[in-house]
């Protein structure tokens, strides 16, 4: 009996703090989804908690998981890299808006080139990833890069083996610039790669590219920069070879017509602006138009509003690109579409 009393006291001691943490977390905003924006959402959440006392519990389980979770209504918002189609948004009664942007770069590991030493075009990237161009000293690559000594080595293609918004952006770009890619492979979060090896996640691809000589992969710009990977300059629609950085990413976003697709689900790839980096995408938030818990959704919108107002510097520090001001204004107006049960906008 005494033993039982001790055990009960012990259980109470361990469970009591657990119970209190559960109640503390109950007021937090919950979200789940895309892994790509996780670092900036975490950073914003930390700063917002310090400013307002409201915490954000964001689980980076992947875009597909984010869509599953918001459909199951277990979170206040879902996050996805690849935009959800307009008809699916209407069917589920959901709204979608962009939060932050990033660029995708072809990461390279080729002997004898500097960090920005190689120039490639979209169609050539398509041929490399289709396996049509097999060697680094292919005449097509040499012609674009006079003065660069390219090795007589097989090109090792590296792709994302997991479903990923980055893959969606990359294959969408290749479909835009290569007809053969469009008909044979297409655009999706994962596709049937004709050649190459797969790495898991941006870090898997950057790690594999770094380990394997004569390889080419595609990663979010932030990963290429943080891992000091060299990358290729890609010719844009205007014929220039812009350097991938926040100004060339924002150039792509500024020129785009955001209202042309439901839920802002437009493509920022291959934009015609003179200095636009050709492979850019936004990452999106999904919320219900009539949320079950309007108070929690209001808290989430307040967080997003705070991030739009105060978060640009933090985003740039982490190599993300903030949304241009006119787009932020459009998104804020769009939030009026989220209403409580009486039909009154909650924000």
């Amino acid at each position, binding site marked *: 009996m005494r033993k039982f009393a001790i055990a009960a006291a012990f259980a109470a001691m361990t469970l009591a703090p657990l119970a209190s943490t559960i109640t503390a977390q109950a007021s937090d905003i919950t979200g789940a989804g895309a892994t790509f924006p996780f670092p900036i959402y975490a950073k914003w959440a930390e700063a917002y908690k310090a400013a307002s006392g409201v915490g954000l519990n964001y689980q980076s*389980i*992947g*875009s*597909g*998981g984010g*869509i*599953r979770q918001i459909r199951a209504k277990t979170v206040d918002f879902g996050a996805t890299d690849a935009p959800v189609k307009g008809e699916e948004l209407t069917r589920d009664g959901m709204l979608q808006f962009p939060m932050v942007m990033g660029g995708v770069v072809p990461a390279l590991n080729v002997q004898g080139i500097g960090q920005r030493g190689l120039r490639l075009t979209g169609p050539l990237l398509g041929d490399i990833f289709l396996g049509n161009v097999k060697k680094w000293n292919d005449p097509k690559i040499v012609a674009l890069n006079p003065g660069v000594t390219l090795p007589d080595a*097989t*090109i*090792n*293609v590296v792709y994302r*083996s*997991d*479903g*990923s918004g980055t893959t969606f952006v990359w294959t969408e770009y290749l479909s835009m610039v290569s007809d053969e890619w469009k008909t044979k492979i*297409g655009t*999706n*979060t*994962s*596709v*049937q*790669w004709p*050649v*190459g*090896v*797969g*790495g*898991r996640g941006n870090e898997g691809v950057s*790690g*594999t590219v770094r*380990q*394997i*000589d004569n*390889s080419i992969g595609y990663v979010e710009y932030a990963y290429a920069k943080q891992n000091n990977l060299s990358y290729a300059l890609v010719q844009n629609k205007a014929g220039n070879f812009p350097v991938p950085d926040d100004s060339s990413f924002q150039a792509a976003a500024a020129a785009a017509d955001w209202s042309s697709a439901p839920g802002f689900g437009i493509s920022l790839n291959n934009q015609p602006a003179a200095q636009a980096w050709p492979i850019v995408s936004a990452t999106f938030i999904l919320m219900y138009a009539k949320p079950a818990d309007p108070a929690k959704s209001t808290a989430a919108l307040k967080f997003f509003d705070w991030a739009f107002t105060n978060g640009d510097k933090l985003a740039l520090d982490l190599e993300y690109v903030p949304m241009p001001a006119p787009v932020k204004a459009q998104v804020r107006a769009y939030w009026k579409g989220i209403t409580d049960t009486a039909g009154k906008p909650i924000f």
Partner: protein
Amino acid sequence: MVAISEQTYKNATAVTRRDNPFRFDPLFAALSKAAAITVLVLLAGIMISMVYGGWDAFAKFGTGFLTGTQWDTMNDNYGGLPAIVGTLSTALIAMIIGVPLSMGTAIYLTQLAPGWFKGPVGTAVELLAAVPSIIYGMWGLFVFVPLFAAYFQVPVSQVVEGMPILGTILYARSPSGLGILSAGVILAFMIVPFIASLTRDMLDQIPTVLRESAYGIGCTTWEVVRHVLLPQAGVSIIGAIMLGLGRALGETMAVTFVIGNANRLSASIMDPGSTIASRIASEFNEALGMQMNALIALGCILFFVTFVVLVIARILVSRVKQY
């Protein structure tokens, strides 16, 4: 000493004397029965939910799921053959490399090694078994794969290029170092400690008198090992190998790092591929709808294959007890 222990014994019997010393036995029996039933319920629950989760895929593709080579997320057309072949071929390579290594280690440790050497090597083997699989994967990707590409894949590919059969099986179209063979080799490293330490324990259990009589009638070391020790421990060793095979079939993290994660079927073991476990690990996060069903169906197949392997191991191990 004797006096103290007698005193302790008397005290102990005095303290533990109870009215009915057996009244806790039914409770104990019920608790252990509950534990055993929990395991059974868990197993049944996993099995049922796997079959249920994968049912849509099995129903839609039928046997085509076992023979199909497509893994097309756009048109929701799935076939598991490349992953099934990858699972079986990496496990087979791991066996071909790992079993002789394990046998050699175990025989050396029990029969040939000098006493002072047995301890450190035995401990090293057991430490290898405790290394987490992600460490094997990272070591594989960062250390093994570049060396393997430069000093094995490239030269071998150049030699076998154009040859019949070998030119197909061993030719690397893109010598990245990642592939079925690399995964098989890493798996072999991972299963050696298991098989070797189990085999060592089994060889140690063989009565010394058997070995000594064999040496006494003039057998060479090879003859003792081949005709006395291995037949004695043979079936238990097969059981140990089966356990290693079970691990090789289901290993996920290390394989995902080094296999190249390609959803393609290739005749060459130098080419990248994927296993059931690595594909599930890669795609599960982002899978929706039919893709999720197909992944669970693949898991179901892996479950079945592993189950069959373990049942065979059980049968073999129980057979040895009859001797």
